[in-house]
């Protein structure tokens, strides 16, 4: 076996282990899916009427869904950090690290199985979106592309969370720590409001925030935009798919090696 196929088979073994856990602890899945449903309903009915079209030419419910998708998959990536910190605390990473397995397999296995979590979340949110009146108005292929942009970006962020999990070591702290970063990151964006309504510096942040471009990309690919109301004239939002993919690639290029390196020197205490 070559190094690569060996690493791939190791990662598959770890992925399988994580997926078995999702199946055996259904509560986990129930709550990861209830949360986005709650968000869809809250925003659609609590803010929906009050917020109106926000000068985007699109009904708020339709505007909202892509934003909730983006927020949910980014939040979903914190699960990666949580699980890794948990494995570290329980001595599981020690066991893995004394095995002659590929040093990156544990992290690839973890991040890959978390993609599965996010796919489930997207399906559930899509269905609840349909119930409250959201529709895909473009082609099915475009819509799939939109989902793919969301998943790729979330995958990249889960590598950031993997590093956080290895450094922070306590699952609960990973959750709290990532919350204070991810909350503003997903709110100071075009997820729930039109960023043009934000004050100066926040507006600039929102324009260049990759969460905005991911949301914009999904919106466009789902056909939830109105051509009469184009997005702000900034490159990031004019080329949201490209900008999102560049961000994802950069994050992966930086954080995959950092996380793998940290993994190789981390041991339980």
């Amino acid at each position, binding site marked *: 076996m070559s190094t690569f196929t060996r690493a791939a088979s190791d990662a598959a*073994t770890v992925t399988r282990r994580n997926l*078995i856990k999702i199946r055996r602890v259904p509560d986990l899945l129930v709550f990861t899916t209830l949360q986005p449903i709650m968000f869809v309903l809250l925003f659609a009915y609590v803010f929906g009427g009050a917020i109106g079209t926000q000068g985007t030419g699109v009904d708020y419910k339709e505007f909202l869904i892509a934003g909730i998708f983006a927020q949910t998959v980014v939040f979903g990536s914190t699960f990666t950090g949580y699980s890794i910190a948990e494995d570290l605390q329980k*001595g599981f990473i020690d066991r893995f690290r*004394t095995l002659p397995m590929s040093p990156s*397999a544990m992290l690839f296995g973890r991040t890959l199985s978390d993609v599965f979590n996010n796919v489930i979340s997207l399906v559930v949110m899509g269905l609840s979106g349909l119930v409250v009146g959201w529709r895909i108005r473009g082609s099915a292929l475009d819509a799939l592309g939109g989902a793919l942009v969301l998943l790729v970006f979330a995958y990249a962020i889960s590598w950031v969370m993997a590093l956080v999990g290895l450094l922070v070591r306590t699952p609960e702290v990973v959750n709290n720590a990532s919350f204070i970063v991810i909350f503003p990151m997903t709110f100071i964006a075009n997820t729930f409001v039109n960023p043009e309504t934000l004050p100066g510096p926040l507006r600039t942040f929102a324009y260049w925030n990759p969460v905005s471009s991911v949301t914009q990309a999904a919106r466009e690919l789902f056909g939830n935009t109105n051509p009469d109301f184009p997005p702000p004239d900034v490159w990031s939002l004019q080329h949201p798919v490209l900008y999102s993919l560049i961000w994802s690639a950069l994050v992966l290029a930086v954080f995959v090696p950092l996380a793998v390196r940290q993994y190789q020197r981390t*041991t339980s*205490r």
Partner: protein
Amino acid sequence: MTDAVVAQGLTKYYGSGDRAVRALDGLDLRVEEGTVVGLLGPNGAGKTTTIKVLTTLLVPDAGSAHVLGQDVLAHPAAVRRTIGVSGQYAAVDEYLTGFENLDMVGRLYHLGARAARERARELLEQFDLADAADRQVKGYSGGMRRRLDLAGALVARPPVLFLDEPTTGLDPRSRLGMWGVITDLVRGGTTLLLTTQYLEEADQLADRIAVIDHGKVIAEGTADDLKDRLGGERVEVVVTHDDDLGRAREVLSGVGVGEAVVDARSRRLTVPVTGGAGVLVEVVRRLDDAAIAVSDLALRRPTLDDVFLTLTGHAPAEDDEADADAHDPATSRTEAR
């Protein structure tokens, strides 16, 4: 005979600057191929850190380590192919079944899917877990988890095995069971380095014992060597009146093979003896002759405390170990279970 495990001058600090804690202080250790060495010491002595360095988990600040001739620091991947490790607490996945846990480890050792399955079933049988094989581990008892964890270390039939406190936290019955499993194992010629806080355990399982304190080995030898230095069994007497302590000490020193040690606060006297129960009778007779009232009297085997008293003149210290304990999962984890 060649040495399967060699550690030389291992030094390891946790933290940095003024708050750095020295976990290992130039530790030297050898384990001859096919033998069992017990690393005996209190919490925070550096046992877990030693195991972590030897099993490629931790890079020391100084010193070298070799397993079967391979440099642990230069070729960790090669070392991992030859070792099996079972940590201080069972690193098994609660949500997987016993079979799935071992099957996964087999695959990660690259045995191949079929061989991994067969080996998993074989080990479950061998470790008396066959009935529980397809149940989730979260329903296992502490002893079963430990056995499963140990089985995980044996999946690839490694020639060198490291067990970190294999019985800590187990009830006496499970402990005996674990001893039986380990004894059978080393009969097959496996080289084993195990750590323990119990002299009795090291005595039962190990060919040689290395006593570790403050990150270095302070005594090394066979269990008999150490016992000779310790004087075998102990007679322990608690006198009823403080005034009798002096006279009781003279009486006991006359019977024992060494000086009696007095703990005035608890009115307890301890003296090393040889000759077993006969000595006890002699002690009772002499104390009675001297009209010394006794509230407790016992013959017992030496404990880790006695080892330390004899070798270092102090009981296993808990003072400055507090910091090291924060890095040594022994205390916290065991209590948490």
